[in-house]
């Protein structure tokens, strides 16, 4: 029977694509499984992970179960060991056409953003890119609007029976938010920005209880039109801004002694709790720190528990990348610096004097 994405009543269950690299589960998988659990409960559906990889990848199924998956569909095949657009698209679409999930979530990594659009186009369904918030039931959605929008929720009539997945994403550097739905086709697909969804705690009982279904890949050599010649990990360790709970960023204010400014930021980040150092564009452009440190519209979007901006004026592009941090502390010599508009605590002063005092006071706690 031919697959028809418009017969939406035939589709059920929440699915998550579980990306692996080198046989290891990615952090985004855990975020997606945790979020998927919430959505599955709202919908009264099962949460199923789809795990593709080389020999032995099935052993990771229990780890995913521990974060809330009811079942993991495992496809082990040496041709799936390393990501390949054609092979992954074929295998995933075959399984989706057979089992018909209502929702399919993919992490918005460089791989997820290669795979997601290809799968959506083949299935003839909608895909919302780089989502930062997901709901199915209307109640949590209106609660979300109450908190995250200027909409006067109590004076707007909503169809509370709507069960389309509501996929919210920022547009234009966070100036606007848009909630997207895919009402006529299934599965409803979203790629989800890494680092924004909360991870659930690991549960050993759930890990043991997870159901594992093995499916064989149906692949011909002619299905795969690209050849991966090598996969190279950069030997230099990249800074993990996305996963960090504490980020201390430096801006042009360190220019009189960049080395010392960065050293102070590192020390403060350590004092605040295993933090990492971020940077404004001025700093990466000047070559004082490498581009992987850059926070902002062209850099990374971060939401740490604590964000400290040292000597950063706060251009709109920088603010777009950090304004959703839970606690923002800004130190700048210019009291009119725009960074103070988004700061919870503002300190006017020279970072070279203020930061050592901060480190000292924190160490006394």
């Amino acid at each position: 029977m031919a697959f028809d994405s418009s017969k939406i009543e035939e589709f059920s269950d929440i699915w998550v694509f579980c990306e692996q690299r080198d046989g290891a589960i990615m952090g985004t998988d855990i975020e997606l499984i945790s979020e998927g659990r919430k959505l599955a409960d709202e919908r009264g559906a099962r949460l199923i992970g789809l795990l593709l990889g080389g020999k032995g990848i099935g052993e990771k199924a229990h780890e995913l179960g521990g974060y809330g998956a009811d079942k993991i569909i495992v496809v082990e095949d040496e041709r799936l060991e390393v990501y390949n657009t054609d092979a992954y698209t074929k295998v995933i679409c075959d399984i989706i056409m057979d089992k018909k999930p209502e929702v399919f979530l993919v992490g918005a990594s460089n791989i997820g953003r290669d795979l997601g659009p290809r799968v959506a186009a083949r299935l003839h369904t909608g895909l919302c890119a780089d989502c930062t918030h997901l709901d199915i039931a209307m109640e949590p959605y209106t609660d979300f609007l109450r908190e995250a929008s200027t909409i006067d929720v109590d004076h707007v009539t909503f169809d509370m029976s709507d069960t389309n997945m509501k996929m919210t994403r920022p547009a234009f550097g966070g100036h606007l938010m848009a909630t997207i739905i895919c009402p006529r086709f299934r599965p409803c697909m979203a790629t989800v920005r890494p680092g924004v969804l909360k991870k659930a705690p690991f549960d050993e009982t759930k890990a043991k209880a997870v159901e594992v279904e093995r499916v064989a890949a149906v692949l011909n050599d002619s299905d795969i039109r690209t050849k991966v010649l090598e996969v190279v990990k950069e030997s230099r360790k990249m800074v993990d801004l996305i996963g960090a709970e504490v980020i201390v960023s430096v801006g042009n204010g360190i220019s009189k002694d960049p080395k010392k400014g960065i050293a102070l930021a590192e020390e403060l980040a350590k004092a605040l709790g295993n933090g990492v150092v971020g940077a404004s564009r001025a700093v990466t452009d000047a070559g004082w720190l490498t581009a992987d440190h850059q926070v902002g519209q062209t850099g990374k979007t971060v939401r740490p528990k604590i964000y400290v901006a040292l000597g950063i004026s706060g251009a709109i592009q920088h603010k777009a990348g950090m304004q959703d941090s839970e606690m923002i502390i800004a130190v700048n010599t210019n009291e009119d610096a725009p960074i103070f508009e988004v700061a919870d605590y503002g300190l006017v002063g020279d970072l070279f004097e203020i930061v050592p005092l901060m480190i000292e006071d924190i160490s006394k706690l």
Partner: protein
Amino acid sequence: MKAFVCVKQVPDTSGKVAVNDNGTLDRASMATITNPDDLAAVEAALKLKDECGCEVIVVSMGPPPAESMLRECLAMGADSAVLISGREFGGSDTFATSQIIAGGLSNLGIGEEDVIFCGRQAIDGDTAQVGPQIAEKLNLPQVTYAAEIHKQGKTLKVRRLLEDGYMTIEVQTPCLITCVKELNQPRYMTVSGILHCYEKPYQVLDYDALKDEPLIDPSTIGLKGSPTNIFRSFTPPQKGAGRMLTGSGEQMVSELVTNLAKKHII
């Protein structure tokens, strides 16, 4: 061989971003630019032309003013330009957009040795979806996030960026490549390029010109053919201004640290 380049004219979001009262982008009041990643795609195609003398065709979907951007690409060295434009195409999401552009490219004819270049993503939507979806609809292999491209005959060797490194991928033509800014430094328009850009072939493909293409089906293009719809758009609340601490450096820091500790943040 031909190198097609898909380009998009976008509002310059690095400058002032203007938003209408109803929450949509006030495009009219903003300057437009060629999408930065797309310029890298244009340069990649022009490099190929330098190396092997291929024909470079820039293709855009958009309203008539996108002509100015296409003329700039011609002034950089592209050989001809095609604008896919029509009311029937308006309101398309990424699925419908790729359907239309794929229909336009099929209409132009993709040969055995041809390459389609796209930018990785546009700065107004940031979806990175249209490139891969065009490839799927044309049943072509794709390589995204290209940061280095070498072509030898029908084989391309591409360095594809990952968050923690890269992959080297080999692919045969015809294929679609999406390019990141880091791929190259786009060349400037030349004086003679500017002088002659209005003499180069420029073609508009509207709905009537494309309606016999199998991909151009009213149920899969435009607002009606788009699988996704906007449920609601809204502006986030302005974050309340925080507290400016006062006093000497010691006093400010002491108040800060005391408050953070009280709130169990540290």
